[in-house]
């Protein structure tokens, strides 16, 4: 009888109050992390896919509808979404996700960014004043964000504090074990010279201790000119690199050109969850990234 009443009560409360925290993630890595940490107490939606450039997203109708019903925004921040997120916040008419509200969570607010430009001038390309925002390429950063996100979930959903704590401990343990494995696997990569297409790999590079010897985009966000590319070719003659990497969402044109010119190897990395078929969650994202990077050294 008591079970019956309890379940009835539960059914009733789930009707009256929203049982799950509705999370609007700007990028798939944060949707995946939210799901890891929130389990069945949250629903997470990703505004973008792993095959879209997160700088250039349309503030489209479906996103306004999602933002209007969201309890929590989980985004990268550091101006990555400045072209579309502020508009969604304003159009949503949703007080919970405005700047400074508990439902406004920007991952880059909780880690120290690198690559803060010493000169803020648009002639230098599409630079981010707050620093390089592409933190999800390092599992170390992901862990720091996960911890902060856990406290935010606990703050928002008081009733399930213990649940989130337990999910966090579980995640932390699994993540650290995975990191140990990745680190072990990545030993042959230490000091490996590489070329990047766009500066969105800085955190991966410092985590794996790779060496960036060149960049195809002379200025971030500006498609490289023939001159820029031939400069890279010249540079590679002096300091050869093992391979060039670019994200799945980026145009392969520049990298392909370099491959043709210098017979350098090319690696298309998933960059985020959903960047390729193998990267289905955060764990497989790094599994896959590492196996792609290691392929060349076999």
């Amino acid at each position, binding site marked *: 009888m008591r079970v019956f009443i309890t379940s009835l009560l539960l059914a009733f409360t789930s009707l009256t109050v929203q049982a799950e925290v509705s999370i609007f993630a700007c990028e798939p890595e944060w949707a995946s992390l939210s799901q890891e940490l929130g389990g069945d107490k949250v629903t997470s939606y990703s505004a*973008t*896919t792993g*095959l*879209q*450039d997160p*700088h*250039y*997203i*349309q*503030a*489209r*109708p*479906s996103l*306004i*509808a999602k933002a*209007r*019903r969201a309890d929590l925004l989980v985004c990268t*921040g550091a*101006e990555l979404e*400045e*072209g*579309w997120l*502020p*508009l969604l916040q*304003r*159009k*949503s*008419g*949703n007080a*919970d*996700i*405005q*700047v*400074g*509200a508990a439902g406004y969570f*920007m991952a*880059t*607010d*909780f*880690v*120290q*960014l690198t690559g803060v430009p010493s000169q803020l001038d*648009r002639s230098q*390309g*599409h630079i981010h004043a*707050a620093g390089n925002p592409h933190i999800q390429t390092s599992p*170390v*950063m992901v*862990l*720091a964000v996960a911890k902060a996100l856990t406290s935010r979930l606990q703050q928002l959903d008081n009733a399930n504090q213990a649940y989130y704590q337990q999910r966090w401990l579980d995640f932390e343990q699994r993540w*650290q074990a995975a*990191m*140990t494995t990745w*680190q*072990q696997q990545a030993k042959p990569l230490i000091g490996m010279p590489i070329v990047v297409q766009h500066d969105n790999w800085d955190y991966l590079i410092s985590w794996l201790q790779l060496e960036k010897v060149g960049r195809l985009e002379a200025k971030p*966000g*500006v*498609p490289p000119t023939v001159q820029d590319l031939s400069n890279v070719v010249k540079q590679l003659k002096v300091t050869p690199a093992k391979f060039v990497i670019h994200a799945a*969402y980026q*145009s392969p044109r520049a990298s392909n050109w370099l491959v043709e010119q210098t017979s350098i190897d090319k690696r298309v990395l998933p960059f985020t969850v959903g960047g390729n078929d193998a990267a289905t969650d955060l764990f497989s994202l790094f599994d896959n990234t590492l196996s792609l990077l290691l392929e060349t050294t076999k």
Partner: protein
Amino acid sequence: MNSKTPLAAMISLALFSTAPVYADDLSDLKAEVMQMRADYEQRIVELEQRLQHTETKTQQVQQQVAQVKAAPSPVVAQSNNRFNPAISAVLNGQFSDYQNNADDYEISGFSLGGEAGLAREGFSLGESEIVLSANIDQLLYGQATIALHDHEGETEVEVEEAFIETLGLSNGMTVRAGRFFSPIGYLNEKHIHAWNFADAPLIYRGLFGNQLSTDGLKLSYVLPTEQYIEVGSTVGNGDQHPGSGEHNGIGDWLVFAKTGGDIGTNHNWQLGLSHWQASPDDREYSGGHSHGGGEAESVAFNGDTDITNLSFVYKWAPQGNFRQQNFTLVSEYFYLNDDGKLSHEDELASYEGKQYGGFVEGIYQFSPQWKTGVRYDWLGSKHRASDDELLEDADLDASGYHPQRYSLVLDWLPSEFSRVRAQINHDKSSSEDDTQFLLQYTISIGAHGAHSF
């Protein structure tokens, strides 16, 4: 660590529970136990070594994690220039070449007022805009757009927009007050520099003199549905063309509804419907022909006016990745209905007018830095007055002519802050066909604005 406990239990079990014990077997048993002990000790040592190894690796990871310094304190507000508002300026300049004389430009069946004409021929400086915006406080957001442009040799300053808006009033409600672009059509809510062509669609030029703004209040509500549905209303003072005159209280009002969504990841769409009404008081038709050289008194309209708009937008990008490639289709249709009286000097006539038309434009961005597009405009009108002479005086004697225009545009976008645009129009706004060539640059400096869908 925990793995030691069961191990110890197993060892003690092995050592002490081997019973029964017989005297003559004792030495054998002793040897056996010693052997077992040695075995287990070796295994323990091995386990300890493995454990130590794992611990050092975990420590390495933890050290790395510790190296990620927490940000000094969450810098939540990312306002540009600390607390200064986000400031940006939009500059543009144009070179125009027309076959016909720009001063003779007219659209059959429509009376052009204000800035509705063509840009001057040759080099001209377009509108320079200064946009300021910021969150005002915990409740409000504010934005002002000041436009500077030359008109007959003098620089005019115009407040294009100056409004305050609630910041997440909750439940999907937003209230806006001040001067703002009316939510009457898809393009109308966008700044001219965000349009896909260098000039306004003919229907915008004909009905609003390019763009309709409202001085008043706007209320909008996004429904809590999976599908995006927004409904809203505005009330204004009714003095903006095609409204006119001073009204105490509400001079014009509008209702709108919008919906839209995604079809898979590649396709997005939006559909909008709106209806606007006003009661113009002495709306003047600037086209008034002067009789006998003197300054002509304009024909004026008094009565009721309503406009209905239907707009459709479709966007496509492979994988929804707009950066590399995308296609946009925009189509809008307007229908204006006038019912009232025309007056000119001491003449008076009852008048019923319909003006309608629309456009379809398709824009294809084929690489991050290049896009091209085509547009087709089509208009029509019907005017009935009890005195045809007044229609003629007001420039409304279209007699069934349908203005049309074909446009072709090519944009080069060195970055998201600059654009060079070339456009060719074949313009049949009146029976005098015209070929127009426009070359334009538009740049934006300062804060990075967000663009709506």
